[in-house]
């Protein structure tokens, strides 16, 4: 019951956060136009992150995550393992199919694999749809809006300190995913935070451990 109580603030935050209005870049005080922020991978990359899994305000576990992403083919390979080296989850995804290679409990539950691949796409791959809107949020941040999968919408936001946010809204305009990217350092994707709302409230804090080279094709 206590845990349920602790979950309420996150639920409240997400359930009350809806698709914001975008103001056209008409103010003379603002730059007349800007390039849409694109905090996405530009070439095939293999990244290793330490991932803190948080729920109800507490760290539940810390695991290692390996992600191999090709932005051209939009294919993804990923693996999750414990500090002890035990592989909990491994999967490959292409635009055509999702292949789960290994999934130990509780990582074999329901839609876990699809949700995980969707989260990886949201973080690393540029939205495929055409730009729907471009302008400023009421807080002054630059934003570009794209259509996402299944009627969702994706806002890609950039502020003056070059920190990016990606927000995904449901077809009913409720915030479902919120990603914070701090790209001000040398390493791209050195720190990523993903918050998920809806039926699965959780937060992932990802810290880059290493970038591994890509094999020549």
């Amino acid at each position, binding site marked *: 019951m206590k845990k349920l109580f602790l979950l309420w603030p996150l639920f409240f935050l997400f359930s009350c956060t809806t698709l914001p209005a975008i103001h056209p870049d008409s103010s003379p005080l603002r730059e007349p136009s800007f390039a849409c922020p694109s905090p996405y991978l530009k070439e095939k990359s*293999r990244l290793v992150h*330490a991932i803190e899994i948080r729920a109800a305000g507490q760290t539940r576990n810390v695991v290692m995550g390996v992600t191999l992403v090709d932005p051209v083919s939009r294919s993804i390979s990923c693996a999750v393992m414990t500090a*002890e*080296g*035990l*592989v909990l989850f*491994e999967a490959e995804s292409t635009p055509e199919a999702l292949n789960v290679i290994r999934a130990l409990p*509780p990582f074999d*539950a329901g839609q876990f694999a699809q949700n995980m691949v969707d989260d990886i796409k949201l973080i690393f791959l540029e939205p495929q749809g055409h730009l729907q809107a471009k302008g400023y949020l009421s807080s002054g941040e630059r934003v570009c809006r794209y259509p996402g999968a299944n009627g969702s919408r994706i806002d890609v936001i950039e502020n003056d300190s070059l920190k990016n946010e990606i927000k995904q809204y449901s077809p009913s305009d409720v915030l479902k995913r919120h990603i914070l990217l701090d790209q001000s350092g040398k390493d791209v994707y050195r720190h990523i935070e993903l918050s998920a709302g809806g039926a699965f409230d959780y937060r992932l804090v990802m810290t880059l451990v290493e970038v591994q080279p*890509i094999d020549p094709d």
Partner: protein
Amino acid sequence: MLIKRYRFLCLLVCVFCGVFSMLHHSGVAAENDLEKLSRESARIKTLKADFVQKKSMKILTRPLISEGRFYFAAPDALRWEYFKPLKSVVIAHQGNTRRYIYADGKMAEDKSGGVQAMKIVLSEVAGWMTGRFDHNPSFKAVVSRKDNTVITLTPVDEKMKSMIQRIEITLAQKAGVIQSVKIFEGADSYTQINFNNVKINETIDSSVFRNVQ
């Protein structure tokens, strides 16, 4: 249902953990008989070793390297600690087993629901800790000699077998020194743990098995 899932996951984690508990058999490197291994293991009262873990998978270009330290004191106290890249500690002492993970700038106890299961499983692998490789119902043990003595543990349970194919423990030729443990999860995935700086029967402060820091 969720508790069962966590228990099975913890069982697997503890199998990894249990492998470390076999380190104190290293003092019988020249033997290839399970009974002799068991008998000789009684001489090991404490053990301390550094380790380097290399995780190899198809998805990785090069192995993921982790480093840590292992402590054991007979009959059943152990500390299995990783320093990097992730910090974590498993401590088993006087029947209590706890796992800690580093998060938010401090070590926090893992309360993911599997600690009790971990305790149960560690007691299950107590056979290993007393040198009885062949008395553990979860694994079939075979001792072979090539250049070194190798103990191969194969899971008996089919479900476990689908997760871990086999575990190979290689004893160094020099008596008293463990060389490596290799855990095969699949054709392209294995974890190799190489030990160095092994110290046997040196005094280990009991706080090592009580305090996380």
